[in-house]
């Protein structure tokens, strides 16, 4: 077995599918957003990702044994990638390589990563802003056309950053949507802001009322994953996202 394997339990037959990735990161913005998307639009589980680099655990839901990193699909040709565990730093590169190889095999047309942008003043922000990063001209054009403000300078750190690069190497257009969020608290408000932007990017219609109504319950349930993720992100030097790059043009 390679370091990371993508296992399809149901063959993917979509033409140029869109992938929405929500792996754990600051504020669990992507994880909360993508799990809500999967639940609300009734995606079905079509596969999973396995690796000896992941913690040696499985998840049990309704008595059924599941891998913590799973792939879902909808009839509209949207695939979603979710994880119920923090991605260990050592697994980031092998995971993103395996995923992007699979994207290429399945002729994925566009990848959207949803994540957070740590905002030290998040308490004062009522409506979190969402900025975008694209990995090619096509991706940047899509962001501009949908009115998403671009991140122009700075470091990006984490799985989504490497995923952008690996997609670029394989010619797969990809963007990351970063919503202002609490760095170390689960942030359903930021997830809602990111989903509004995802709606504009993909044409999906997502009713967000329940996400905001259940915000406190989500925060409570996501505490343990948030704690694991914060530890993992610290090892990835996530705090570098607050730094200024030295190069100037």
């Amino acid at each position, binding site marked *: 077995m390679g370091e990371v394997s993508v296992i399809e339990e149901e063959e993917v037959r979509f033409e140029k599918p869109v992938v929405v990735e929500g792996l754990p990161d600051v504020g669990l913005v992507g994880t909360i957003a993508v799990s809500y998307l999967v639940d609300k639009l009734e995606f079905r589980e079509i596969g999973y990702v396995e690796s000896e680099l992941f913690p040696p655990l499985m998840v049990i839901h309704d008595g059924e044994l599941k891998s913590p990193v799973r792939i879902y699909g909808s009839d509209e040709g949207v695939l979603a990638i979710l994880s119920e565990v923090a991605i260990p730093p050592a697994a980031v590169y092998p995971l993103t390589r395996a995923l992007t190889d699979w994207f290429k095999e399945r002729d994925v047309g566009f990848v959207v990563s949803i994540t957070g942008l740590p905002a030290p003043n998040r308490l004062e922000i009522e409506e979190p802003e969402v900025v975008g990063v694209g990995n090619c001209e096509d991706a940047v054009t899509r962001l501009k056309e949908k009115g998403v403000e671009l991140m122009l300078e700075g470091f990006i750190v984490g799985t989504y950053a490497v995923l952008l690069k690996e997609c670029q190497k394989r010619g797969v257009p990809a963007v990351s949507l970063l919503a202002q969020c609490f760095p170390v608290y689960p942030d359903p408000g930021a997830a809602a802001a990111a989903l509004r932007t995802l709606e504009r990017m993909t044409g999906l219609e997502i009713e967000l009322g329940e996400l905001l109504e259940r915000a*406190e319950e989500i925060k409570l349930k996501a505490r*343990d994953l948030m704690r694991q993720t*914060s530890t993992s992100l610290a090892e990835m030097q996530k705090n570098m996202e607050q730094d200024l790059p030295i190069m100037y043009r």
Partner: protein
Amino acid sequence: MLKKDIWAMWRHDGCLEPLYEMENRENEIVVTIDLPYVRKDDIKVYVTENMLEVSAEMRSAVSWERWGSIQRRITFSRFKKQIHLPEKVNPDEVSATFKNGVLRITLPKVRRHVPIKVE
């Protein structure tokens, strides 16, 4: 960054340990604590020179059926956290606010930084 705890974030006495963040600034320590399901009036904050204790009743108890490895119903009704402070603070000058489920406590330090003139 979040403190790297090795114990579970819940206790058999019905208390949950909240997520928190501590920022050690020049003249003060700022602690924020995430407290979902909590009303402002149900928060209690105790401070000594080197320790902060927060407890907060949840507005309704939260139950999970067949919780994790213990496989039984478990109910939580309160958050509780003790935080050892990295420097001495003045308890009389501590202030706190609560907004959108996040408690923010500002603890002025006893030994403040004094600017020295460079000659």
